[in-house]
């Protein structure tokens, strides 16, 4: 069955439908923490269509449909487009776009202080793509002369360079190569929470609140700027907090120190789960839900992870089948994370009652390949590149090759 790409307007501009194309070599990734994560496909377009795509599609919303016409198998935003034409490869991307920039730096005046410049913004770009912030770290200086003017100029320069998607080209030696297919790469809606900086100014509030309260303050439609998201009602309905479950067990200090993105703040709230200092609780997850077919909106979720077994896999099925607990096959495009998985034909007779059962695991991420009709399922022991780099973690383990740098104590 074909995967279909339905293209819509950029969310800041509306929700109108534009085009529909068959999507080739489709893949997607869905994570328990975040929801729809990434997706990619290729489209067969003629030259004129490919040029229009390269120019116009960046930042547009997409939804991929297969058998069920009510629910897409994945949805998000177009983040990168690559068109290969002979030896030339043209790419346009949302990755380096920034329409709000600042520079953070440290300067020794009386004592070494960290300062941050006032943000400079391109409101015309924000009106199209939504607000996407970059904060540049300009290091430290021992110079007592005022440096903020220079840093503000730097922020303004970066804004001028990055306010709109930029195309890049690459000419490969030897010529030839791919022809004609346009590669589309997409990111999930939750990634837009990485676009904003959380509570960067010292004027923000302080204090300790419950974890779910901290989440709702971030999603709030009113309150201190910097603490709540500025892309209000743009990518999801932040006013609808019905999917934010109360978690009063764990507290979170409202933090007005700089440097975190909104998503990092959400990660740091969510990672303790509902544990207390005295006892471990259960893990919690957060992210953006798919568009509700009845409401027509997307909502933010913050809730306990699902710990019950929902899927069964068998070694003898290879990678072809995931089944529900009744034994019925779950089509691979509909396998979803945040659920327990049990392998039923391995280690038969296992009875290690003091050791965690290796046949059961919590499904953190699912990666689907339409051409292979298979899914790759990852738990905590994630051997993928993203797992090695601990990209999904706010608090990274020290001492590992790709973890947090060792912190010096004085």
């Amino acid at each position, binding site marked *: 069955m074909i995967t279909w790409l339905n293209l819509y307007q950029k969310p800041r501009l509306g929700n109108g439908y534009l085009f*529909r194309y068959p999507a080739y070599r489709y893949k997607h990734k869905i994570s328990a923490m975040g929801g729809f994560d990434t997706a990619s496909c290729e489209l067969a377009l003629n030259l004129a*269509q490919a040029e229009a795509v390269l120019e116009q599609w960046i930042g547009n919303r997409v939804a991929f449909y297969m058998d069920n016409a009510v629910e897409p198998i994945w949805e998000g935003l177009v983040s990168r487009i690559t068109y290969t034409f002979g030896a030339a490869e043209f790419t346009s991307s949302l990755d380096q776009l920034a329409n709000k920039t600042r520079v953070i730096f440290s300067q020794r005046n009386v004592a070494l202080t960290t300062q941050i410049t006032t943000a400079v913004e391109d409101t015309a770009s924000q009106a199209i793509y939504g607000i996407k912030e970059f904060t540049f770290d300009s290091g430290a200086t021992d110079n007592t002369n005022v440096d903020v003017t220079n840093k503000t100029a730097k922020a303004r320069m970066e804004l001028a360079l990055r306010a709109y998607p930029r195309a890049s080209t690459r000419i490969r030696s030897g010529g030839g190569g791919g022809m004609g297919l346009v590669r589309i790469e997409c990111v999930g809606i939750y990634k837009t929470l990485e676009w904003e900086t959380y509570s960067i100014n010292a004027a923000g509030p302080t204090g300790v609140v419950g974890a779910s309260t901290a989440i709702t303050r971030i999603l709030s439609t009113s309150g201190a700027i910097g603490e709540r998201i500025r892309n209000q009602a743009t990518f999801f309905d932040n006013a609808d907090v019905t999917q934010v479950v109360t978690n009063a067990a764990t507290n979170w200090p409202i933090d007005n120190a700089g440097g975190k993105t909104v998503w990092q703040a959400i990660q740091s709230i969510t990672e303790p789960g509902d544990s207390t200092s005295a006892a471990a609780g259960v893990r919690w997850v957060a992210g953006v839900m798919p568009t509700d077919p*009845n409401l027509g909106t997307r909502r933010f979720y913050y809730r306990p992870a699902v710990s019950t077994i929902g899927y069964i896999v068998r070694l*003898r099925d290879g990678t072809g089948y995931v089944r529900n607990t009744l034994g019925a096959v779950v089509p691979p495009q509909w396998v979803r994370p945040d659920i327990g998985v049990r392998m039923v034909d391995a280690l038969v007779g296992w009875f290690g009652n003091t050791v965690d059962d290796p046949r059961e695991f919590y499904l953190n991420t699912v990666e689907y390949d339409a051409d292979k009709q298979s899914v790759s399922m990852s738990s905590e022991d994630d051997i993928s590149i993203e797992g090695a780099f601990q990209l999904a973690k706010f608090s990274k383990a020290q001492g590992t090759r790709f973890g947090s740098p060792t912190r010096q104590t004085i």
Partner: protein
Amino acid sequence: MATNFAKLNLCYGIPLAPLLTATLEKGKEWIDLLNLSGFVLDADSGWIPQIAPLKQGGLYADSPIADGATLIAGQVDNVEETITLISSGATLSTRTALMSQLHNYARLAREYWTLFSQIDPIYLEWEALGAPGAQYALIYSIDIAEQDDPFSNTSASLASRIVLTIKREPYWRGIPPGSNPLVWTFYTRGEEPVTDYTFNNMSLAAAATTHLVKDTAVDNAVRYTGTVTAFTRKNWIDIPANFIPGDAPALVCLTVDDLGGNVTADSVWLGVSVGEITGEGTLSERKRFASVTVQDSDPETDAVITVDTGAASGNRIDTSFATTITMVTRARWLGGGSSGATNIPLNLNAGIYAIFARTRQTGGAVNTITFRVRISQDTNGRPSLTSVISNTATAEILGTTGASAAWNIDYLGTVQIPLDRNAAVDVNGRGINSNGEWQVEFQAARSSGAGVLYFSDLIFIPFDRAMCQYLAGGVTGNALFIDNTGYFGHGRNDVAYCGDGANPRELRGSNGLVLWPKQDNRIYAIATNATAGQSDAVATGGTIALNIVPRWSGVRDV
């Protein structure tokens, strides 16, 4: 080899409708490949029509620790085949003119798929000797190889061998690509172009008189009249097996008009079910489960049946939450055995469905009442461990009592029936079980306030075969088309057309609908409006009309 063919043409362009002269259409041109004075099939190695193979042999679930492998995906590939021709000409210039025409068609075939402005398809037209008619296949590319010296001017070389390597679509169609599918409909009626019909009789609009199948009584709900074979309301259209010849899924041009009361509907869902199962006893007719209404239901906690002429069955279930506000069963239907009005055995409902519920809330505050469905099997009237629970939806406050338009349809998710397999087999050794039981429970909860939930019906739209949704945008009075025959695509059907003929509409799900050959098919439909406060009416008198393009892997038999 050539004596086995009555006709073999390489065609360019879509044939005109009979007697149509004032048109922007180019019309059909062709190169005869059975012409002794032009191109003719080589008598020794001319052409053997190939059957489309599975792509890459099929996709298998395979494991080194298990015997064998299981097919999990098997789509057919394009056909690549060679046609060896002899080109003849009285002079060299005659032959080179023929070759130039062939090269031109090869270029046009490529450009049809790669250039926006080349809109006329290139296709093969073939009629086997003794076949009931010609059959057609879209061509993607033509490679030409000359086997003899093309520049020789001796008389012996004026007949030279040429090998065409053609990539075409997997199946043969009953009418030319891009033709109006009514051409097939007229053929099935024994009607001839010009003498029996002209371009004036070929409208695809719902109001037109000629369609392969047309039903002007397609409602947005189901109402039984005591037995499973008698309805006063139905949300489907039946296409009998003998209307769908061929051996490959038939392409469909579908028209929908006024479904759900066209004034308010902005989404229409369509799903196809197939098959006929003859069970024991009195159940001799295929029944693919369409709806659960208040008929034959058992109201439970805080629920009563109330007459409501605006509900699907003429009755609704009112849930007051007087004693229990938590999520418990408010109504139950048993689908077991061969007796009863809507008791339909498990296997007659086998399939994968999208579930919709039609409800409304009266009184109370918004977002205080939620509901869901639980489906169980092998219950014997008792709750079973073998059950699935749908998503939960929130009731909408709407309308007034008795108004057929004062309802809201919500999507609750999907379910596979039977829950664990694709056929429930009897433990008593009788094979597929006509008495397998199952039940549907409608559950609801209220978080606060004093709202009352009204329930009308559940609608099940099958999608194990094909399902699509089109967004009608609340268009009033205009029929909408979903076409994957290629008529609206001027030959191209890689992306189905959806729109009113002038304005495209969004299509979701499968690439339009297809019908399965030599089997009874049924298309179910439901129309909704997503805007809060707008009603999803129990509307009547919608129209679904369709025409098809049948397809074959080999020689057509009809």
